[in-house]
């Protein structure tokens, strides 16, 4: 382990490989041996690209302890993810810290349905891999606006016992929303699951929670509030769950989907909208 340790100021987090998965969605493999050693499905890292950079959280999609690497999948939506997307193979990023957050709550279930939206379909992968190893029955609903955003299809469908694609423009699979698809599957009693996990926008999470509430199925929402330290020190990531304030980074990021205050989450996620657009304009001219 000693040789993995890196002193302050060293830039060890080298990009080993890089792949474009869809328009604006990239996958990178980074050297981060300590993280690779202890990661569990559902956990994330916080990265900082350069000296002036912001700290942003990204889910650990895959890891390889013997290579000492982790894999991240991200959508380029703002300054930091765009900077990250521009880094080339062989280049380094300044900071990677983790694994943060608690391991996923679905890992002990036998029959699991998981729903991912857009880039976050990738966040299902580590859970799926783990569940498959345990012999669980897995159902995946991959949802995106359009067919070309259904990412990691081979890897994910291979690990799913049932795999459904849904797009809102109908270019692939069912046309509609993830919630409607889930509702149809449950209504026709085609699908018997003990737990549903969803990751994506708060709007989708809310509609999924509304569906599963009717069927009284335990449902877990993987939340993505704005984070800063990811260590429970700042309180920036606080969310309201069952009228209690929780810190998503240390108490979550998964919570009971039926108890989350989505309106509050939505407004807090937009808190820096105008600042984000300003910095994008200044630095990326877009």
């Amino acid at each position, binding site marked *: 382990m000693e040789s993995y340790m890196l002193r302050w100021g060293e830039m060890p987090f080298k990009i080993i490989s890089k792949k474009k998965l869809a328009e604006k969605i990239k996958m990178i493999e980074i050297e981060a041996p300590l*993280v690779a050693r202890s990661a569990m499905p559902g956990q994330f890292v916080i990265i900082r690209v350069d000296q002036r950079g912001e700290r942003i959280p990204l889910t650990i999609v895959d890891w390889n302890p013997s290579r000492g690497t982790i894999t991240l999948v991200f959508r380029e939506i703002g300054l930091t993810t765009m900077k990250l997307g521009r880094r080339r193979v062989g280049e380094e990023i300044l900071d*990677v810290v983790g*694994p943060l957050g608690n391991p996923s709550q679905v890992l002990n279930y036998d029959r699991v349905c998981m729903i991912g939206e857009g880039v976050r379909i990738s966040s299902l992968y580590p859970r799926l891999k783990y569940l498959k190893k345990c012999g669980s029955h897995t159902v995946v609903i991959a949802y995106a606006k359009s067919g070309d955003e259904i990412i990691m299809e081979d890897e994910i469908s291979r690990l799913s016992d049932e795999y459904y694609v849904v797009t809102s423009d109908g270019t692939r699979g069912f046309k509609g929303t993830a919630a409607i698809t889930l509702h149809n599957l449950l209504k026709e009693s085609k699908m018997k699951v003990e737990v549903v996990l969803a990751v994506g926008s708060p709007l989708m999470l809310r509609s999924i929670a509304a569906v599963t509430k009717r069927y009284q199925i335990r449902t877990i929402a993987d939340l993505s509030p704005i984070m800063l*330290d990811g260590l429970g020190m700042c309180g920036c990531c606080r969310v309201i769950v069952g009228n209690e*304030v929780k810190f998503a980074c*240390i108490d979550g990021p998964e919570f009971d989907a039926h108890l989350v205050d989505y309106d*509050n989450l939505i407004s807090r996620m937009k808190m820096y909208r105008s600042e984000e657009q300003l910095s994008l304009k200044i630095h990326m001219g877009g």
Partner: protein
Amino acid sequence: MVERIKMPELPVERRLKSFDEVALGYSEEMARVEASRCLQCKNPPCVKACPLNVNIPAFIRHVREGNYEKAAEIIRSSNCLPVITGRVCPYERQCESACTLGKKGEPVSINALERFISDWELSRGFCIPAKIPEKTKGKKVAIVGSGPAGISAAERLALEGYEVSIFEALHMPGGVPLYGIPEFKLPKDVLLKGLKFLDELDVEILTNVVIGRTLTLNDLLSDGYDAIFLAIGANYPLSLGIPGENLCGVYFASEFLMRINLMRAYKFPHESDTPISVYGHVVVVGGGDVAIDVARCAVRLGADSVTILYRRTEKEMPARKVEVRRAREEGVHFSFLSQPIEFIGDENGRVKAIKCIKMELGPPDETGRRRPIPIPGSEFIVDADTVIVAIGQTVNPLALRGFPHIKLSKKGTIVVDPETLETTYSGIFAGGDAVTGSSTVAMAMSTGRKAAHFIIRHLSR
């Protein structure tokens, strides 16, 4: 008699828009004159009142004689971070509170002299060249947390020939002095230069390692660390527990300060990518030093007005007088005997006002201060576009995950043997704010030094 030399300060109009340091430090001449005021007491009370027992008369004598190198050496033998303490010590409650001169007039400005020496050291490019100690002991100590407590323990242990690794969860070392105390009180480049001696001592600082997540205490023990010192601070923000605390525009002081100090959000968007959203009428809740720091940051970020709401009166306010004075000069308002009971939001979920209640003072509580009691029916509304809650922190026990052997008190602090600072697990020690709750830099450092002493004893058995 010569009067106490005042600390020169940045003029108010230059403070309002910049995070430049406010206290400017003594010139050489000022330092020499101030040093000449010291009576060189035989049994100096100031030394006992300094948590680090810095040999104050001795270093001041060397300042008077212009022998700065010697002065620096004396300070350094009990205080490896004069760069911090010389700027932020609440000296009126520590060393200077006991100064003999203070009985009749003004105490010696010990703090300013300490800073003078530390600035002099830094201006020469480095702090006193340390003899690089050899790692003769063949034993390794892990320190969790790179704040004042962790750093001062590391220094002691390294000097004694132990191999020392500091594990820090954030991307930079320094603890609260780095990410909590604002730039205008403690410039970050000064702080970071002041940490260089750790390199010289060959102490390794491993940033981006979260104990309890990246590695557990068990990992450290099985990876061959012979002792562990927990110096994780008290950095879990306390909330008021009132409705509306999750509205946009309501910050905890820790987030607010971390964005500004660690992430340099005051330079957004041109030199920093981390945003902060402070505008309009800013209201700060609390009455301690943190509330004052936050309010003064808000002024600099261009708020229309900044008001501190405190539930008792100015007399009970724990904040330091100097800082309250500076805050007032910068235009911060105070509203005493006021307690928020609800934050009110607009249709977008952003705070727009605070519902408060008037308080009156009842009989003294366990801290000896008069207890505030709400006056029924006295509710009133204060407009607020940004609110910052600065009512304190408690210990964040993340480091102890997966390691149930260490006991915490009811308040959440780490339980230690008061004599040796050993926790309920043999070989693991704890100190600083993690044990005492929020305190001061010098106090945290003194527990770090003490822990190092008992760690050495433990390892030599």
